[in-house]
């Protein structure tokens, strides 16, 4: 009884928590950090202006400014004044270091939590997809897997994102798709560091094929379990990598 009262109170407090720019600036910062880590934004590349960035992200200019400040502090961006001024990406070849730092910063508890949350979204999507995918949809998934070049880290990473997104779309839930996209922006670069290794890339392909097989058999339960297992493996790999870094 007291317990339920407490949780209801907490939930109510969350409802009325102020809608400040805090958190939003962090999301913008995270999105840009991920893009730099992945090499989507490369050294010397000019970022959009504060106001342009604010418009694109749908946030206030002050929020975009705050995010840029944080990136400057991390040494990922530098701002030059003058006619050819603007904010430029400065992290050349530092992606590994940035990811390693994040891996050190996050505790084991946080890493496992990330896995639990992401599994909840990805596995539910797979379960629903098994009920809602047509044979044409399944052919598309097979094709998406075939198109990935597992010899290449970039191709496999991109394939991982595409595959999860396709599965989320097949769930027919717009909210699951939006959440999948948001989570990919938030932790995909970190979660799939394991794809640097050839063995892990092969495992990834096999795991995707196994999920599609379950979906094709309309076995939602199995599609769910296989998705959870694949993400759990990635988390265990991260925990090992973290332990090694900290030795």
């Amino acid at each position, binding site marked *: 009884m007291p317990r339920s009262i407490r949780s209801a109170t907490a939930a109510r407090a969350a409802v009325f928590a102020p809608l400040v720019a805090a958190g939003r600036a962090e999301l913008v910062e995270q999105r840009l950090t991920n893009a730099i880590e*992945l090499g*989507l934004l490369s050294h010397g590349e000019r970022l959009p202006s504060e106001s342009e960035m604010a418009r*694109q*992200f*749908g*946030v206030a200019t002050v929020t975009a400014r705050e995010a840029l400040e944080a990136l400057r502090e991390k040494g990922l961006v530098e701002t030059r004044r003058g006619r050819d001024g603007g904010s430029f990406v400065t992290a050349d070849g530092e992606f590994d270091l940035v990811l390693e730092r994040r891996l050190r910063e996050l505790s084991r508890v946080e890493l496992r939590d990330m896995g639990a949350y992401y599994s909840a979204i990805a596995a539910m999507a797979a379960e629903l997809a098994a*009920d*809602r995918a*047509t044979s*044409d949809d399944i052919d*598309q998934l097979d*094709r*998406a897997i075939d198109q990935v070049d597992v010899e290449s880290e*970039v191709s496999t*990473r*991109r394939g991982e*994102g*595409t595959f999860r*997104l396709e599965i*989320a*779309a097949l*769930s*027919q*839930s*717009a909210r699951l*798709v*939006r959440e999948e*996209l948001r989570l990919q922006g938030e932790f995909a670069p970190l979660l799939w560091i394991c794809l640097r290794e050839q063995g892990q890339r092969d495992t990834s392909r096999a795991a995707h094929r196994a999920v599609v097989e379950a979906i094709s058999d309309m076995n939602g339960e199995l599609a769910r379990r296989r998705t959870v297992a694949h993400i759990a493996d990635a988390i265990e790999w991260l925990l090992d990598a973290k332990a090694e870094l900290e030795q």
Partner: protein
Amino acid sequence: MTAVDDCVSAVRDTFGAVFAHVDEWRARFEGAIAAAGGRISSAEIDALTESLVVGGLGIPGAIVIGAGFVAAPRFLSDTDWHLAWWLGKSNTFGVGSSTPGIRRLEAVEDERAESFRDYTNLEWWRVPARTGSRHITGPYVDYLCTDDYTLTLTVPARHGADMVGIVGADLYVTDIERMLLPWVRAIGQKATIVNSAGRVVVSTDPHRATGSLLRLDGIDAETLECGDTGLSLVLDRS
């Protein structure tokens, strides 16, 4: 006219009206491309798309929430991949919490980018490219242009024998449900509109979820095609 006929007509007319616009745009695109001898730039396509679709997107209560031209790979003179696509006011894609206006879709057209998608694999491109005729894709979650539950109507555009792109329009499934539900309800028995893959668009039975597949084995039902929309009306006999 029975309520069943009325419902079939309503489905045909609802989508027919949108296809009429799309076909008109297609004729304009094909005319401009022919006049340019088949060589046209992305800027020219953008200007034409904007002039054609923006008016319609601005009408209050318009059901079209996005429309435009998507070029065949390597057809345009200055770029390999190109989406000239405009989004309507009710389309909240990518705007966060700010109020959306009519705007251009910012698509990733660089093949090397991580988030680049080869759109020729997607149903709204694939099917009209294969059949050469109009197609309704969805209900599906469109993560490229709306981030929402969508129906996309597309037709191929041609120059001579070549398919040079598709012309299309997006609709929210929610709007279609609101428009068609009174017609299916008026039939007075369990009735469901499904797409060509058997995916439920709208049903009198609230437990037949939109987007789920209506598996007809074990159901005693009559299926009526709704014109050339690819959609059908399924009437349960029991």
